[in-house]
């Protein structure tokens, strides 16, 4: 370990503050927000979020990529390896996520600085919105740091509750409420399913800490109880992670939530579902008496592939810009699932960098869509055709964001993609997926940018009229459409894009993530660190994966970007092309559209009952897979 004992001791004492600090700030905002003027509330919230960022940054630096900070809350350190308390375990990736959350919360607060006309203050709800953001931050941070299964459920619910309230925040409008309701019902159901899994594991092992459960499970072969519990917990996490067929709530919620909230939901909350899944799998179920690696690997890659393809297909079909971005998140989540599903340190490191880069890029794109919503009270790609020509700066940022989404070097998305591709080089079709899916989703973004900001191409055709959400006739989120676009609404996306660029350019970050991934993939070392009883763990002995730009990675990134530009050009100017070849291509596309695309789109019906039925079907499939092969 590279950490000095004194530093790690202080870090272990201060670790619970990473959760307590935003909680206290939220309580403070709820009180002071009743009296403070708007700018005072915003300043307090921003200062508090900056303090939290400083705290988790310091914790990450003190722990180091290769270290682990372990805290038994309340001083209940284990006796003979067993404790009665709750353990927090912070390693490189957990703290990295906490830092990412803190950065995005700060960005969301900055973006919302002059956002929302504020009727609330007069009625004593002044600090409500920033307080909810801090509560969300506390929930996500707690979820990322906890080492206890029930405690994870509590923080899962905390981030859920804050997320539902934030999504439905604009109560004057019908659609956000419907999106929030679908989100809340599926999310709560997922939480209860997880709790059933916790109950089953507690009955078998009598333990709640990840490491404690794993130790008890190791004594006996896996049976239906263990596999069913694993299926329930995986299902809950996959709902959060928006994997197909658990993903239906995501476009409804992410497209309708207030823009600063979209930043958090798409940038980090879905990814936390995947993180939780991996964390629980590796620390609880990966040993003897759990679910074998090959089964988990196969499941994650299969689910990830379907998710990536569905997300890309539906992203391409959208004309509602925020919904387009939401489906692009589904597509990228599929890639993250595949990357994480490889279950080795290199692929984990690549996925982590990809997630960080994606958070910046997607956040920036949502922010820019928010600018359109503010100016034109619409996010309809067709309705806005050529209407945003007067905002070239926004257009350029949007197009840069599109290229970064495709994985253009040297953005962090490109680096993460390239590292995962290297780890997956034995599966050529997986590499193809990593080239194709970003290209299609980025192509949709570039197509929209060219249409909205440049008026390019022919006037878009109307299709699927009964089965889509157009995005026209939205309420602007800022008062007075005549005034200037507030400066933070342009600064924040630019900073976020710069952040995504930094992920691809800072080797210190790469080394941190590489070391953190090795530690993350070492359950034996985790168990030993938690219980204080040395196990047979190979902590620090595994070789560090190489995380850096490689020639094939750069070429694949450029290829994705070129394909994205090609897709966009095809959509814009393809309909005007003459000649037999063009006609055949158009006829083929139309046939595909009628048969496959429309059927898939119709499943996204906005009906909560449908979503729940699909959720149960996914749970049943997971149960069967784990029971038969687990």
């Amino acid at each position, binding site marked *: 370990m590279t950490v000095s004992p004194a530093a790690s001791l202080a870090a272990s004492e201060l670790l619970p503050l990473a959760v307590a600090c935003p909680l206290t700030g939220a309580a403070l905002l709820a009180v002071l927000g009743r009296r403070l003027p708007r700018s005072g509330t915003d300043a307090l919230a921003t200062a508090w979020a900056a303090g939290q960022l400083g705290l988790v940054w310091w914790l990450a630096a003190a722990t180091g990529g290769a270290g682990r900070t372990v805290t038994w809350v309340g001083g209940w350190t284990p006796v003979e390896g067993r404790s009665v308390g709750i353990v927090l375990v912070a390693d490189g990736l957990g703290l990295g996520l906490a830092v990412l959350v803190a950065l995005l919360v700060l960005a969301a607060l900055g973006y919302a600085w002059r956002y929302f006309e504020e009727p609330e203050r007069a009625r004593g709800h002044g600090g409500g919105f920033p307080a909810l953001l801090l509560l969300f931050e506390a929930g996500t941070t707690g979820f990322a740091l906890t080492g206890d299964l*029930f405690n994870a459920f*509590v923080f899962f*619910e905390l981030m*859920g*509750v804050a997320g*539902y*309230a934030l999504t*439905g925040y604009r*109560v*004057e*409008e*019908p*659609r956000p*409420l*419907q*999106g*929030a*309701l*679908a989100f*809340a*019902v599926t999310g*709560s*159901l997922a*939480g*209860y*399913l997880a*709790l*059933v899994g*916790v*109950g*089953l594991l*507690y*009955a078998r092992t009598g333990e*709640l800490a990840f490491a404690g459960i794993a130790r008890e499970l190791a004594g006996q072969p896996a049976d239906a109880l263990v596999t069913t519990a694993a299926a329930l917990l995986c299902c809950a996490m996959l709902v959060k992670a928006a994997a197909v067929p658990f993903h239906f709530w995501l*476009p*409804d919620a992410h*497209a*309708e939530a207030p823009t600063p909230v979209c930043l958090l939901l798409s940038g980090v909350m879905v990814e936390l579902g995947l993180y939780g899944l991996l964390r629980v799998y590796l620390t609880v179920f990966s040993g003897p008496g759990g679910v074998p690696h090959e089964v988990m690997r196969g499941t994650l890659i299969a689910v990830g592939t379907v998710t990536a393809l569905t997300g890309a297909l*539906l992203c391409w*079909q*959208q004309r509602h810009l925020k919904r387009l971005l939401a489906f692009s998140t589904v597509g990228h989540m599929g890639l993250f699932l595949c990357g994480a599903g490889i279950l080795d340190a290199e692929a984990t490191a690549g996925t982590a960098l990809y997630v960080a880069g994606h958070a910046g890029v997607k956040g920036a794109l949502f922010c820019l869509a928010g600018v359109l919503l503010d100016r034109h009270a619409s996010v309809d790609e067709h309705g806005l055709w050529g209407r945003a020509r007067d905002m070239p700066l926004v257009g350029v940022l949007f197009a840069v964001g599109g290229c970064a989404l495709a994985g253009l070097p040297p953005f962090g998305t490109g680096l993460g993609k390239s590292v995962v591709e290297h780890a997956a080089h034995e599966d050529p079709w997986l590499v193809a997926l990593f080239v194709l899916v970003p290209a299609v989703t980025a192509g949709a973004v570039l197509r929209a940018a060219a249409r909205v900001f440049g008026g390019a191409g022919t006037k878009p055709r109307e299709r*699927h009229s*009964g*089965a*889509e*959400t157009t995005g026209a006739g939205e309420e602007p989120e800022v008062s007075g459409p005549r005034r200037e676009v507030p400066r933070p609404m342009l600064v924040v996306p630019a900073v976020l894009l710069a952040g995504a660029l930094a992920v691809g350019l800072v080797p210190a970050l790469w080394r941190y993530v590489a070391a953190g991934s090795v530690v993350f993939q070492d359950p034996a070392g985790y168990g030993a660190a938690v219980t204080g009883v040395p196990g047979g763990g190979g902590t620090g002995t595994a070789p560090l994966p190489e995380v850096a730009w490689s020639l094939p990675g750069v070429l694949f990134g450029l290829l994705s970007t070129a394909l994205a530009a090609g897709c966009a050009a095809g959509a814009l100017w393809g309909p005007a092309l003459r000649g037999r070849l063009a006609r055949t291509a158009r006829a083929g596309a139309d046939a595909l559209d009628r048969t496959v695309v429309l059927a898939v*789109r*119709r499943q*996204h*019906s*906005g*009906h*909560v*009952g449908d979503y*729940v*039925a699909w959720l*149960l079907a996914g749970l049943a499939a997971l149960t069967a897979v784990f029971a038969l092969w687990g």
Partner: protein
Amino acid sequence: MSALPYLAAGWMLLVGVHGLVTSRNAVHAVGCLTVVQSGTYVLLLAVGYRRGGTAPYFTDIPAGTPVVDPVAQALTLTDVVVGAALTALLLALVLQTAKRHGTTDPDALTGLRG
């Protein structure tokens, strides 16, 4: 039949989900979600039960008396509070939905598609 309470918990879970799938009223759907959650209470309390054990309060019983598992009871208490909080928030969402859409029938909420 020693597994009966566990099976009852699973039954409540599936009954609740059935209600969610077929519900024609969002208030009713929130109620169904509460049924699912009640299944988790039954499971946790059954897991913590101990034959011959008394309530885990040592005010007037000597230390060493067998008691049911206090941890399972504490988890259930947390679960109850989380569930109540969620239900309140969900009902607030449903109330506003009813106001803005004029209906709480999921079949009639057609604003988000594709």
